């Protein structure tokens, strides 16, 4: 059936028209973008102090010189992020679910979950990093790791776990009660309803704020520099203090941006796929 169909003259004309409208939009978008960015560029480079700033922050020689050290330090940030992120997701989901538990014998768990989010969301992450990275190894306890990097990672997990738990919780609470009602009506237990009905929908809904927290975590791995751990920021500051040039800091900034962009695109793609599949008709 579809094979024998040829679009009518009217439809072909409409397609041409749509294409023309699209092309016009493209031209408008390109022109406006060019004007805005060229204007910005000219505006910045024509400021009186630009030459000095360029020398101090955008120096090609120092960028090349510091590149290897920064890259090596950056590897620490990447490792921290890669290991902390899954742990945070698991911890946060567990905490969010614990707060949703309604069974009487789970009350202590709920109290612990509430206390945990209240306390760890309240403490500045940088303090937590310093306290744990310096404090825990200093306890001299047998059998616990003494690596400062390990404890800095634990601090990030505890701090971000509390944030992300709240994100999950808001997602869970945004699922319409009728969903729980239909799960109940089908005879699912509360845990099953959570596992198969509520949480899958909630997770999809909170993907954008989750990404936001991921990106934030990627950046906050830089806080470990304050505990004397040799990450990208530490390496850049080290170089800057010896050579009186801050270009390496800009290099680090570029590294962080480059790391976060693919994640953002991946999330956009996931989100779009979900919308196409499950929100198609929206009737």
């Amino acid at each position, binding site marked *: *059936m*579809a094979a024998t*169909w040829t*679009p*009518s003259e*009217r*439809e072909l004309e*409409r397609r041409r*028209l*749509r294409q023309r*409208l699209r092309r016009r939009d493209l031209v408008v978008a390109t022109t406006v973008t060019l004007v805005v960015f060229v204007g910005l560029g000219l505006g910045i480079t024509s400021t009186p102090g630009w030459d000095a700033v360029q020398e101090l922050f955008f120096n090609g020689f120092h960028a090349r010189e510091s590149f290897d050290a920064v890259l090596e330090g950056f590897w620490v940030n990447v490792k921290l992020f890669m290991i902390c992120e899954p742990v945070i997701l698991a911890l946060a989901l567990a905490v969010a679910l614990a707060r949703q538990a309604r069974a009487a014998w789970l009350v202590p768990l709920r109290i612990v979950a509430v206390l945990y989010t209240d306390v760890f969301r309240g403490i500045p992450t940088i303090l937590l990093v310093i306290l744990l990275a310096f404090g825990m190894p200093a306890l001299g306890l047998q059998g616990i790791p003494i690596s400062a990097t390990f404890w800095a990672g634990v601090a990030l997990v505890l701090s971000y776990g509390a944030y992300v738990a709240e994100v999950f919780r808001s997602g869970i609470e945004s699922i319409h009660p009728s969903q729980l009602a239909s799960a109940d009506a089908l005879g699912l237990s509360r845990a099953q309803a959570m596992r198969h009905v509520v949480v899958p929908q909630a997770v999809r809904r909170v993907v954008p704020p989750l990404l936001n927290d991921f990106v934030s975590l990627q950046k906050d791995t830089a806080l470990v520099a304050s505990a004397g751990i040799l990450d990208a920021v530490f390496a850049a500051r080290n170089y800057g203090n010896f050579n009186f040039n801050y270009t390496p800091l800009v290099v680090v900034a570029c590294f962080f941006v480059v790391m976060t962009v693919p994640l953002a695109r991946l999330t956009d793609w996931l989100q779009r796929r979900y919308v196409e599949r499950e929100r*198609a*008709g929206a*009737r």
Partner: protein
Amino acid sequence: MTGPVLEVDAVRKSYGERLVLDDVSLRVDEGDVICLIGSSGSGKSTLLRCLNLLEPIDDGEIRFEGSEISDPRVDARAVRSRIGMVFQAYNLFPHLSVLDNCTLAPRKVHGLSRTAAEARARDLLGQFGLGDHVDQHPDRLSGGQQQRAALVRALCTEPRLLLLDEITAALDPELVGDVLDIVRSLAETGTTMVLATHEMSFARDVATQVCFLHEGRILEQGPPAEIFTDPREERTRAFLRRVLPPA
């Protein structure tokens, strides 16, 4: 105004490989009540959504009040502000009270003052037996009440054409009668309607034209007396045998 309110000419619509509307043509005159009947999945909702420009069409033409609205240059919002639609699943805004649901478009799209919009909405809600639920949120209402609230929301903008998608599906037989009366009185006051329905008695009572859709095509159309008593097509006959109680 002379000439048809709406003209649909050889409209085609597919979702990917799946052809949902195929060569659909339809003419709606002032005061017409067109009933779309046909089995589930035959494309009734899709046709209504295309008429309201909620779905782009793949071929054909739709003309509203004499001008083509399937043209890409047409301002879809201007068209929709003249066409009312009630969805199969109500689609009321859950965060607004019933009254606010009904006054949102009159105030924001049609520029009515709050007092004028509320007076009109209260009046209509009263007529539809929702006087006690004006300030409640939709979730508190029963299915039938939500359906009527959705109908009022569409009527509040005084549309030239009303598209109704199975609006009696969730109502008990008594309420079906009530809504049928409302729809009939709307038709008498000159509201033109296209509605999809599984209620054959409803179609027989209010329709000026009945269209039988089968796999995305209008197989047969004509006045209800003709379609229901002496259908031309074998498929129409088979469909009616299934849905109508044996006489």
